[in-house]
């Protein structure tokens, strides 16, 4: 069996990629989803704030997902649910498994990787103490409360100020739990400012920056945690320990793109993002394999996931329509300075930029009053002022066709952040 395009993941990225590929003229598409419904993580994100960029209205996660699910269904784009992609080979053969068809291998002309990300677990955080019940990742607690209808606990401490942790601080408070404190290792929050305001400040929940959990008490169930301040090298400072009695500890300590399948097939991974290295078409190091959404780099806003995935879907369609042929292409690396940690894409071939290209990036620390520039062969093509830049907020610059046309022999693309 063979499909022109297989999309791995039926969350926001996979749905937007499928719609864009269809609208670019591709018809033989298959979306593979491991859950029992389309929509991905949006199904458990019942809070509002989604879609302002895309739809100019404020939607909840399920409502935002419904727009795209309806779009997929209106186009009759095929999808399979309850189906796990077990393996993808470097020649784009996808091994799928589900209860009705068993294990089968399907060849693909092109693939869009849209598997999303996972939460960093307790094991990855090296928190000492016993392993009692009552320790959850924030997203697990979110699923339990919003979809399964269970309360994970009554007295809660949250480690990490990622957006899901902040959202869950409010959600558990509304459902009657007492959220005692949110501790954040870094001197700044990992979440969006608006979530600090509407999830913590609104409910008087304290946020302790530069603090971490140094002990978990309780053998069968969490009975309490000890929080301590950390120094500039993130080491706990003796004498600053505070005990909190609680029955639940939530962890919201970052997300990791889920790239086991990508690695197995031999896609190059960027060690900074933990996502594939991609060019301007969001194509990975394997021609015809594209990536978008949180599997590529962790986003703060689903709107940008949709936008990015639509670009990947359109690029995948173009690849198939060009006969899946490997073409010679330039790879002008995107270099950066001034606190930028990474960019997506990592390289650009101007010949493949249609009207415009969005380059997304993150900075490594909180910076005020900056100028973001894009230099094409040393000449300033983009200049924008930013009042505040933070690691928790993704930045973007837009490069237009016109800018590239002014530099036909372009050799260097550089993103620079400097003091205003």
């Amino acid at each position: 069996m063979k499909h022109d395009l297989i999309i791995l993941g039926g969350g926001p990225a996979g749905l937007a990629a499928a719609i864009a590929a269809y609208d670019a003229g591709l018809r033989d598409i298959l979306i593979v989803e491991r859950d029992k419904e389309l929509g991905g993580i949006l199904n458990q994100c019942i809070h509002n704030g989604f879609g302002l960029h895309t739809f100019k209205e404020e939607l909840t996660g399920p409502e935002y997902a419904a727009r795209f699910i309806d779009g997929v269904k209106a186009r009759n784009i095929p999808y399979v649910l309850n189906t796990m992609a077990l393996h993808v080979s470097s020649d784009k053969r996808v091994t799928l498994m589900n209860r009705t068809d068993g294990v089968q291998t399907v060849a693909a002309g092109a693939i869009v990787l849209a598997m999303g990300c996972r939460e960093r677990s307790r094991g990855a955080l090296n928190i000492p103490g016993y392993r009692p019940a009552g320790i959850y990742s924030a997203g697990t607690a979110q699923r339990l409360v919003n979809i399964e209808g269970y309360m994970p606990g009554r007295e809660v401490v949250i480690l990490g100020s990622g957006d899901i942790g902040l959202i869950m601080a409010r959600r558990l408070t509304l459902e009657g739990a007492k959220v005692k404190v949110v501790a954040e290792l870094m001197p700044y929050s990992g979440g969006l400012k608006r979530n600090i305001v509407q999830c913590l400040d609104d409910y008087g929940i304290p946020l302790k920056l530069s603090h971490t959990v140094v002990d978990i008490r309780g053998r069968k169930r969490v009975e309490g945690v000890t929080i301590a301040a950390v120094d500039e090298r993130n080491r706990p400072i003796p004498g600053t320990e505070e005990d909190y009695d609680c029955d639940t500890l939530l962890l919201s300590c970052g997300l990791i793109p889920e790239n086991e399948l990508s690695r197995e097939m031999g896609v190059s991974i960027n060690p900074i993002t933990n996502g594939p290295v991609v060019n301007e078409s969001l194509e990975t190091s394997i021609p015809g394999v594209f990536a978008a959404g949180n599997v590529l780099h962790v986003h703060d806003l689903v709107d940008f996931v949709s936008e990015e995935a639509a670009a990947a879907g359109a690029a995948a369609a173009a690849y198939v329509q060009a006969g899946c042929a490997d073409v010679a292409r330039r790879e002008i690396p995107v270099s950066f300075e001034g606190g930028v940690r990474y960019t997506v894409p990592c390289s650009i071939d101007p010949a493949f930029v249609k009207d415009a290209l969005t380059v997304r990036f993150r900075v490594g620390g909180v910076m005020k009053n900056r100028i973001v520039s894009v230099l094409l062969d040393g000449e300033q093509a983009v200049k924008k002022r930013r009042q505040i830049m933070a690691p928790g907020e993704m930045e973007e610059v837009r490069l237009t066709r016109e800018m590239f046309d002014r530099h036909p022999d372009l050799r260097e693309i550089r993103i620079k952040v400097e003091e205003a």
Partner: protein
Amino acid sequence: METVNLICIGCPMGCPMTVTLENGVVQSVSGNTCRRGDIYARKEVTAPTRIVTSTVRVTGSTTGAVTVPCKTASDIPKKDIFRCMEALAGVTVSAPIRLGQALVKNVASTGVDVVATKEIL
């Protein structure tokens, strides 16, 4: 003249805004990048409101759903949030449920309905 610094919660941009007030009357709003910011700032310093999102119990779903996500159809006064949650605590609705279907009318006497944010079959 009194100034209040706010962070807009209208969208994830989180614009830092400054509101100036004279005897409780808003004189100016700055720092916002869209009209929503202006509206939010004026409301926030006089009569703050929020959209409340939650879930209620579901019976009879053919897909096995036990909850349906919901929201207040528009923002309600901040002080009424917990009364709204109490009103939702005992509610059970039976499937099928349409997206946008009113689940609780005039929740906690706010004049606002709580509506389903997902279709449940």
